[in-house]
């Protein structure tokens, strides 16, 4: 029809004018061309519809109540009449207050502003003003700060948190590990600060020497961790009979090759060493390889993989917990060298990474033959949380002198280098002096009857190490912390034997862990206080 086409051609410059006539305003008229239920102001309703209503949902429609006099439309239902009919009244409502608005010379005072309709001219300007998540009332001083932000640089070093897989250029740094069976699976990502050691079986034979990628050195150093290349730290060559030799020039990549019916340069083990900063960035990565050779009969080899993390500028020391001791890990101990206020553990740690006998607390290890003098030097490290007792039998003959026997027994009980300090936390650093607990030495004598006048021979027969530890930290995740270590040596009198006779005395050493943590105390929040204060000079003229 031509009317609608004409209407479509006319583009509205602004939104339709708001309805201000109270007689025509109806907020409950929601359905177009249909009667809304209980809507007395709906023009679509007929008298028959009104007779079915129960109440009027909109009883009065007024203008702004601040005005002194305003028009009001009142709708009501006359239920007395039969049938009920709607009553419509148009009255002047008067505001009795003396502060009612008599007149206003400001057009937008009592109504909402009509928003600007977007057209092709002002669309860009409107988008600039209102296109973002926030906009202010004054478009002039709206600053475009979002443009000044630089996009984050992709080349920035990536910061890791504990357990996050280490990203390489294409995917993640992989540490092959057995998944369901013992066969290697290459899908195990290495997590940051998660020291792992895995062993798995790889199927390889001399014919497939060049085909299997996972036995070639290139597979493990090809992918570079973001911005850091994996360098080859050392190569150990293992011969067919198991003898290992460290190669001198270790920056050459040796690829598998077939030589005299053997496939050599097969990767038997990889050990990654990642150096990180305390901000969580990886700055160095090195890999040590163990290469071996296989012959025709071999169908599969066992590969071992390891990854360890070292913080930059610190010496790598195996932790026994982070920070509290973990049950089953050895207790870390150390010495205070002459002149230095910190334990000398750091000097020893540089030599051997994994097992460091000088920095552990050890106890005599029982052997099958139970002869103390024959079992020289067999010691086992003390593991946190495991009470141990061990011992041996000492055969004393008449020919033994007191002083050498005492010294031998002390060496037996305490070992060659009994440490002086024990780390209170599993990750105590050698530089933090206060994190180390000194070992207290006590001497007791077995015989209560103190025959001190008699200068008899006292030989040590028992060493008891008592480790007192406490729970430290939060209630949900308590950390074990060693508070006190006491080494008690019990001595007994050596009675002089008649010649030819011999005695056997038992020598024992034990370790006991005692939990001395105090019970948790409940903590309650303080009661809220009413803070009502008068100003300082409230009673000014009088006070």
């Amino acid at each position, binding site marked *: 029809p031509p009317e609608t086409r004409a209407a479509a051609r006319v583009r509205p410059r602004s939104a339709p004018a708001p309805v201000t006539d109270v007689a025509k305003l109806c907020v409950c008229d929601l359905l177009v061309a249909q009667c809304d239920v209980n809507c007395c102001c709906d023009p679509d309703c007929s008298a028959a519809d009104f007779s079915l209503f129960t109440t009027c949902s909109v009883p009065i429609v007024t203008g702004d109540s601040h005005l002194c006099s305003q028009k009001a439309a009142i709708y009501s239902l006359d239920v007395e009449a039969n049938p009920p009919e709607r009553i419509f009244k148009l009255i002047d409502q008067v505001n009795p207050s*003396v*502060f009612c*608005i*008599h*007149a*206003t010379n400001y057009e937008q*005072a009592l109504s909402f502003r009509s928003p600007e309709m977007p057209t092709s001219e002002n669309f860009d300007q409107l988008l600039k003003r209102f296109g973002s998540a926030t906009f202010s009332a004054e478009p002039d001083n709206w600053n475009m700060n979002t443009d000044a932000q630089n996009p984050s640089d992709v080349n920035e070093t990536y910061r890791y948190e504990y357990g996050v897989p280490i990203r390489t250029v294409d995917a993640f740094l992989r540490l092959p590990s057995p998944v369901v069976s013992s066969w290697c699976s290459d899908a195990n990502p290495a997590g940051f600060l998660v020291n792992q050691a895995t062993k798995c079986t790889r199927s390889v034979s001399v014919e497939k020497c060049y085909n299997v990628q996972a036995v070639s050195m290139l597979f493990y150093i090809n992918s570079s961790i973001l911005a850091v290349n994996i360098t080859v730290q050392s190569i150990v060559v293992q011969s067919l009979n198991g003898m290992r030799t460290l190669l001198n020039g270790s920056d050459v990549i040796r690829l598998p090759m077939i030589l005299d019916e053997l496939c050599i340069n097969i990767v038997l083990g990889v050990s990654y060493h990642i150096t990180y900063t305390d901000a969580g960035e990886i700055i160095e990565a090195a890999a040590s390889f163990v290469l071996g050779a296989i012959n025709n009969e071999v169908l599969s080899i066992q590969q071992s993989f390891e990854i360890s993390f070292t913080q930059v500028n610190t010496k790598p020391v195996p932790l026994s917990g982070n920070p509290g001791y973990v049950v089953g890990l050895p207790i870390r101990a150390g010495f205070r060298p002459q002149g230095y206020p910190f334990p000398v553990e750091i000097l020893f740690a540089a030599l051997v990474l994994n097992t460091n006998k000088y920095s552990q607390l050890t106890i005599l290890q029982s052997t099958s033959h139970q002869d103390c003098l024959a079992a020289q030097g067999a010691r086992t490290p003390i593991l946190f949380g495991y009470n141990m007792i061990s011992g041996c039998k000492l055969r004393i003959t008449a020919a033994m002198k007191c002083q050498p026997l005492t010294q031998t027994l002390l060496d037996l009980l305490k070992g060659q280098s009994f440490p002086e300090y024990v780390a209170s936390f599993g990750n105590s650093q050698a530089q933090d002096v206060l994190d180390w607990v000194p070992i207290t030495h006590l001497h007791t004598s077995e015989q209560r009857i103190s025959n001190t006048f008699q200068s008899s021979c006292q030989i040590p027969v028992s060493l008891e190490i008592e480790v007192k530890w406490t729970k430290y930290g939060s209630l949900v995740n308590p950390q074990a912390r060693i508070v006190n270590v006491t080494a008690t040596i019990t001595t007994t009198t050596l009675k002089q034997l008649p010649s030819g006779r011999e005695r056997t005395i038992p020598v024992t050493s034990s370790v006991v862990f005692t939990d001395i943590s105090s019970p948790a105390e409940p903590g309650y929040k303080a009661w809220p206080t009413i803070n009502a204060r008068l100003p300082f000079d409230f009673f000014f003229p009088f006070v």
Partner: protein
Amino acid sequence: NNSYQLSSVPLQILFYVNGIYYIFYFLATLAMIVYKSQVFSYPDDFLAPDLALLLIMAILEVLRLYFGSKGNLTEEEAPLGLSLVITVGSVILSVYFLVWQTYVLKADVIINAVLLFTYGLESVLKVVAIAAFVS
């Protein structure tokens, strides 16, 4: 009629009452402007002229009452004439506050009407006094 005294006593009484009433008027108008700015939408563009004109009106009122009182008591027609001229300005300002203010409340209408009535009465008495002084 005391022929030796030309000063108009009713005019002086009216000046006195006008002064007191104007103090009340000034405080009431100022308070209502503050009320309007809190309750209604009162942009700064409209608030500034209203406050400025109220201040000007207060200054004019002080001058007007001073000159009028001085002229009446010294029986000189020059200050009284000046006061009459200033009254015209005050009337215009009062009409502004009655009709052209941003928000005209009913209370505004009442106090401005009283002020205008006072001005009218004063003007008549001033003209009579000037006529008495001149002759």
